[in-house]
């Protein structure tokens, strides 16, 4: 088994938290994981890309090859299109539907949504709504993890355990809100 994910979004949206949650869950299941991150200048409000590879055999490359990703998982709709060349023909795009507009020439949102829906397998997620439902405005990224959960090669239970590990210094209330966001994301 080999599962390649392209994670993307805008610097500051929590792309790395999404990567960490899935990578930690894969680690809990004793799978091999490679997770490539972006630090430094590129993080400042710019397009952010993280490669996440999960396998039960040895992983050589830290980077996903073009046309190889099983999933493009995006915190932002425009950004999901930017990296679409990584997706393999039968792969799936899962993206937050809400835009992050910090550039003057952001295209019409409807056009972006239409473009995403044109893909063979795609899913737009109302993460803002889920974050509200889980009473945690910062849980959009865990909602995205939830929306991806049924396709990922890890159990939802492992994702929840991963959240508990990653937020171990936070209160139980915060951990539960993030777990709730995963559940809500998974139910759509």
């Amino acid at each position, binding site marked *: 088994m080999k599962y390649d994910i392209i994670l993307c979004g805008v610097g500051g949206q929590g792309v790395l938290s999404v990567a960490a949650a899935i990578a930690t869950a894969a680690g809990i299941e004793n799978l091999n994981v490679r997770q490539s991150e972006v630090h430094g200048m590129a993080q400042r409000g710019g397009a952010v890309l993280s490669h996440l590879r999960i396998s039960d055999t040895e992983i050589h*490359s*830290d980077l996903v090859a073009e046309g*190889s990703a099983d999933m493009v998982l995006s915190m932002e709709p425009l950004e999901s*299109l930017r990296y*679409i060349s990584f997706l*393999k023909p039968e792969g799936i795009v899962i993206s937050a539907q809400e835009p992050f507009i910090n550039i003057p*020439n952001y295209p019409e949102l409807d056009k972006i949504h239409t473009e995403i829906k044109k893909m063979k397998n795609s899913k737009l997620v109302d993460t803002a709504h889920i974050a509200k439902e889980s009473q945690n405005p910062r849980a959009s990224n865990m909602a995205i993890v939830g929306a991806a959960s049924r396709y990922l090669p890890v159990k939802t239970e492992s994702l929840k355990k991963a959240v508990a590990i990653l937020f171990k210094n936070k*209160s139980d209330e915060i951990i539960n*809100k993030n777990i709730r966001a995963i559940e809500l994301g998974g139910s759509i």
Partner: protein
Amino acid sequence: METYALLGDEAIALGAVDAGLSAAYGYPGTPSTEIMEYLQQIEKKEGKPLARWSANEKTAYEEALGASFYGKRTLVTMKHVGLNVAADAFMNSALLDIRGGLVIAIADDPGMHSSQNEQDSRYYAEFAHIPCFEPVNQQQAYDVMSEAFDLSEKLHVPVMVRLVTRLSHSRAAIKTSSRKKENPGVKAPDVKQWMLLPALARKQWHSLLKKEKEMKSISETTDWNPMVIKNSKIGVITSGLGKNYFLENLDQCSQEFNHLHIGYYPLPYDKINKIASSSETLIVIEEGEPLIEKQLRGILPLTIDVKGKLSGAIPREGELTPDTIRSVLGLSPKASAISSSMPLPGRPPQLCKGCPHDDTYTFIKEVVSELKESAVMSDIGCYALGALPPLQVPETIVCMGASITMAKGAAESGMKNVMAVLGDSTFFHSGLTGLVDCVADNVPVTILVLDNSTVGMTGGQETILPSERIKQIALGVGVHPDHVHVVNAHKNDHDSNTALLRKELNFNGVSLIIPVRECIEYFRKKRKAEKGDN
């Protein structure tokens, strides 16, 4: 044996600690920063090793040399361009009689994710005649440290470990070994081998060239340069992450290859001759400059076909990926999902919302718009993002500290209204010496030190000294008190800041304006940490 999921940088740090590290010095720079940050986490928890940021890479290197002089295993860390700053200490240290292992962990940034060039530190190792290891994954990044320290103490030379962004910033599980004891503090036994007076330095140079022979013979036998000859007509030489991308594509290739991987330098000439004599074509896949390929080609005609970055078979610029080496391996590009035909606007990095630099650049921009002739020389840091729209204020960005000195040169050539814009940490790094030059020649420049009280771009390290002291430093080196101003970097003070800049540009001497406001990002982080919030 324990398992951890670590960044390549963190694996270097933990590997060093488990190899008996006593002290580490460095200056923050992407993608190397997390080495020191991880060491500092260990220090905080366990009380050691000593892990310190320094004012710049040169001071870091020299501090590391001092610890090594006392027999301790010492690590010095920086990004590739940082080694330019430390080059004086680095080049000369190769001639010393190193007893306490000295390892230099350098992180290169092919593709320039967060840097101003793509220079390849393997050239520096070759230049200094020291060994260089190049790990290809997180486990090797951990394992290499023990090997590098042992080799440094065996050959009595500094040893380089070269990383690249994709290893530094990629996370994977590693297995650790037991921790070695630290070296006792023992002064270098022969101080004559630490004094590079010409007569003594000649001896040291002779001795280094002798050591180099041993470095080369190690290269033929070390596990870091594995070779497999498969009776194929095509040989592949990989180095660094080139190996990973080669292996990633290998199962799709219809043929087998002879393969030599280089993970240790100087190069193994015998092994290279062996793979060349067994192959009709040699493919060279290396991350960074075509250092190996260039040596293979030399000047005289080749008897074998060599394919790589110089032949044009692999892109000369940017970082390697699993895709960029497919064609040289005889593979066609992979089919991807329907590519979107929609034109997508770029989303470059930008100053954070509420960033104090935004307010500072806004007032500089207004004053600049009124001037017939002006220049804004800027520097390396978050504030360099002010060069992008909509602000577009900085006009030069070259290297750490160059804002003040380039401003001096331009002003002395007769240019009017020359400004230098740099941050507080860059000022301590190498702006300070430029200020001394400006004062010495009383040059009409207006220096703006954007004080956000942190090293912002690399993740908010503490500035080496409290930035309030910059004012005292300026006064101390002789900037006239009437021309040193500390102002508020806030839009509420826009009018007074604009008026002040106009006035100082008219002054025929050195002016220093320090717009102060805390970095918004780290102000938020600090507040969040205090509240223990998500």
